[in-house]
């Protein structure tokens, strides 16, 4: 036995395929029993800007994490309104994995998520508001700090404010200082808020 050389890694020609890779066939392939077929369908749907609805539909039912991950990557690449709305729906899912995967995907879409961020931060469900703050953690967008300031000034839920304060300690500037002091006064009896706001102000001042 030995080191051998073969030529097995040649590009797959289109005519060798059983099915053409048009949008309709790929959407059908999203329902295939074989996860490899579903993964490749999800991957190839990147080329079809109208595919978001079908991908979102499959995402909600897909049980194989590897297929889900590729659907999310494709939705991130497409990044249209339907894709973003589908990701927002995932934030309301009971499935922890799907929710976290959607948060990670949305972090990659600063321009697309920005227009809906204020809505997410004002959502009736405090969990969704916390997930929205989680998205801000790595969202490269110039409004991140002002969104966080709005949260700590207005949000009635302690945990939402606490999550926002933690992040402000990391990304905030002196512009957040007054709002942090207001929050500290608002929750004068909450030891964690006292601790977190002091820490955030210290980091901002030293930074």
């Amino acid at each position, binding site marked *: *036995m*030995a*080191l*051998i*050389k*073969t*030529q*097995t*890694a*040649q*590009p*797959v020609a289109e005519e060798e395929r059983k099915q053409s890779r048009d949008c309709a066939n790929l959407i059908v392939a999203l329902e295939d029993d*074989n*996860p*490899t077929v579903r*993964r*490749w369908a999800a*991957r*190839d749907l*990147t080329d079809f800007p109208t595919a978001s609805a079908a991908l979102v539909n499959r995402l909600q039912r897909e049980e*194989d*994490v*590897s297929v889900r*991950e*590729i659907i999310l*990557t494709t939705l*991130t*690449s497409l990044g249209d309104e339907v894709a973003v709305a589908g990701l927002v729906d995932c934030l309301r899912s009971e499935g922890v994995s799907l929710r976290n*995967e959607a948060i990670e995907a949305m*972090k*990659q879409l*600063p*321009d697309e998520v920005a227009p809906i961020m204020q809505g997410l931060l004002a959502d009736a469900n405090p969990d969704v508001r916390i997930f929205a703050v989680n998205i801000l953690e790595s969202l*490269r*967008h*110039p409004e*991140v700090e002002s969104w966080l300031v709005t949260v700590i000034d207005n949000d009635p839920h302690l945990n939402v404010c606490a999550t926002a304060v933690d992040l402000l300690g990391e*990304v905030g*500037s002196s512009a957040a200082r007054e709002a942090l002091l207001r929050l500290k006064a608002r929750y004068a009896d909450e030891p964690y808020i006292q601790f977190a706001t002091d820490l955030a102000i210290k980091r901002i001042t*030293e*930074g």
Partner: protein
Amino acid sequence: MAATSISELDFEKFREFFYRKTDIQFEPSKRYFVDKRLVERIELTDSGNFRTYFTKLRFEASGEELQLLTNLMTINETYFFREEYQFQCLVKSMLPDITSRKSDSSPIRIWAIPSSSGEEPYSIAIYLLEYWAGIKNWDIEIISSDIDTKILTQARKGLYSQRSVQYLPENVLRKYFKRTAENYQICDDLREAVEFTRVNLSERADTRAYRNFDVIFCRNLLIYFDDVSRKTAAETFYDALNPGGYICLGHSESMSRISSLYKVRKFPEAIVYQKPLEAK
């Protein structure tokens, strides 16, 4: 105008941020190296000071400056037996595991990407021949790919400088290389043992045919990619690997921060990532 300087606190802030973004951790001993490149970028971007530059780095929507800085902070160099502990892991842990599970005598397939000028795939070949007894019982295919056709031509030629071969044991150097006037020529047997192919990892048409691999080496490439491209590459590797197949990244890279598809395997020699055995 006062010279730009990086304070201890600046360095710490940058170090923490850069680690979070790239998984690359700079020890305090790298302070001079890091400061020098930061100052260079602060001045070239007319940022004036660290704070302004750092804000740009964190919030720039395109992420271009972070990518540029990442490129500057990573030294693109390669040589034979670089990060040798992973080759030790290959012969002592990964291949014994793979062969124990194989139910037929089909070849074990290894994909090394990027090939660069060939040091890595040839190192794998040499390591298998020198340090893996299983080579007597198994056929091995090594395929190595790169996006750059010029570097592939160079890899196929197999001509190396003294610097490239400096960490090879003397007996290995004598056995597999011939000294030329200024360089070292790798032997024809090894040149013929590695298949070099041109692949753009971001191009689905290029990667679709790359399947049924048992081990993938992709070291110090993903750090140059943005988050989405890194994730896409991880997903491509997932479909290129057999269930239970392994992927080796560079020492400063972590699959756990890219994708949740792989299991972390902590072998005595190295930490590598495995496509779950039960994966379909």
